[in-house]
């Protein structure tokens, strides 16, 4: 049990996807223009990650080694299409604002990375915990990054105006701002990690 909990919690800090593993940066840069977009993308990715981890782990023993990547991609792509259809049906505005980045979850390295490095070698429960933990960590990271960009870039949070008479720095919402925001976040996270290490 303790092992499952450890697999679950490692995604929150130890292996926090965009900042510690530095994986899945394309959607991280592109969709974090607002906290809502970041959270939506995170939830969609988490769903695909958990489902694909479970299925990959279930079928890991029947897949011949030579076609494993192809098999993983088919599994992942199926769940992405399911997510896409579900979002069109029940979250259309979010689907429109995320646009092309929903189908692009297929090629998100985090998902293939977890399937290849973890789910293809471990049991179902461990894999589900791993997927859920990494997914939640990714969601939190995207939401925080989106919130920072939204607050400074447009003076809002989750679409609600925060303060009046504030001239937003629109630059942070635009693509170059994504690099600046992500870079600053990485610097802060690395600073904290370095201090943790030196204390130990």
């Amino acid at each position: 049990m303790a092992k499952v909990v450890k697999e679950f919690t490692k995604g929150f800090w130890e292996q926090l996807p965009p900042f510690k593993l530095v994986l899945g940066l394309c959607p991280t840069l592109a969709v974090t223009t607002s906290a809502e977009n970041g959270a939506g993308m995170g939830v969609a990715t988490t769903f695909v990650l958990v489902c694909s981890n479970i299925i990959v782990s279930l079928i890991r023993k029947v897949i011949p080694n030579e076609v494993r990547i192809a098999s993983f991609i088919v599994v992942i792509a199926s769940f992405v299409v399911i997510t896409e259809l579900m979002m069109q049906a029940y979250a259309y505005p979010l689907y429109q604002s995320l646009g092309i980045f929903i189908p692009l979850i297929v090629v998100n390295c985090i998902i293939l990375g977890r399937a290849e490095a973890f789910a293809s070698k471990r049991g179902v429960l461990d894999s589900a915990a791993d997927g859920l933990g990494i997914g939640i960590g990714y969601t939190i990271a995207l939401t925080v990054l989106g919130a920072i960009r939204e607050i400074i870039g447009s003076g809002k949070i989750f679409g609600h105006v925060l303060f009046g008479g504030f001239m937003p720095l629109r630059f942070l919402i635009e693509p170059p701002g994504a690099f600046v925001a992500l870079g600053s976040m990485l610097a802060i996270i690395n600073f904290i990690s370095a201090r943790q290490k030196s204390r130990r």
Partner: protein
Amino acid sequence: MRKIIRMVVVLTLITGLSGMTLAYVDKFTAKPIEDTKIKLVKAPAVQEVFEGLGADNDPIADRKKVVVGKDSHNRDISIFAFPAKKGGQVIAVALETIVTGYNPGLGVMTAIGTAGKDKGKIIRIGITSNAETPGKGSRASEPGFKGQFSGRPTGEAISPTGIDALSGATVTSRAVVEAINEAVKIFKANQDKLMS
């Protein structure tokens, strides 16, 4: 050899299963997706073209399906017609036709009057989806262009040379005319059904 057979069988099984699942999910979500799109994309356009008519019904709830042709599998292609009613009488009908301008997917909502002074005239048109060149064809959505179709009789098809085309966007202008003519044609062919 056995290895190759095993690879082929496993991969075929996985793709087959995934195809089956997706077909099922697609079938299951088709209706909600259609409803969502009508509510969020079509409803605002219908409201726009019917503005000021004083309709007392909900054109979205009263929508009717009309068959406009067959696809390559011999299945019916149908579009929605939205009627505006006043005191139970149909006073106008809006139809969305989708044509290809400079890019595919140019959607035009055409409102046709069926009673009173607007009878047999185009009331207003609205653009529902527009992927034309920004700054050129995209200007089809501006009131200056789409306003010129208001009040035109539906007796005969509009000629592409008889309008003020958008400068630099001849193809888009012609496509809008084509979409309106198509809507009028569909309306005339299904008049009995739509007026009831």
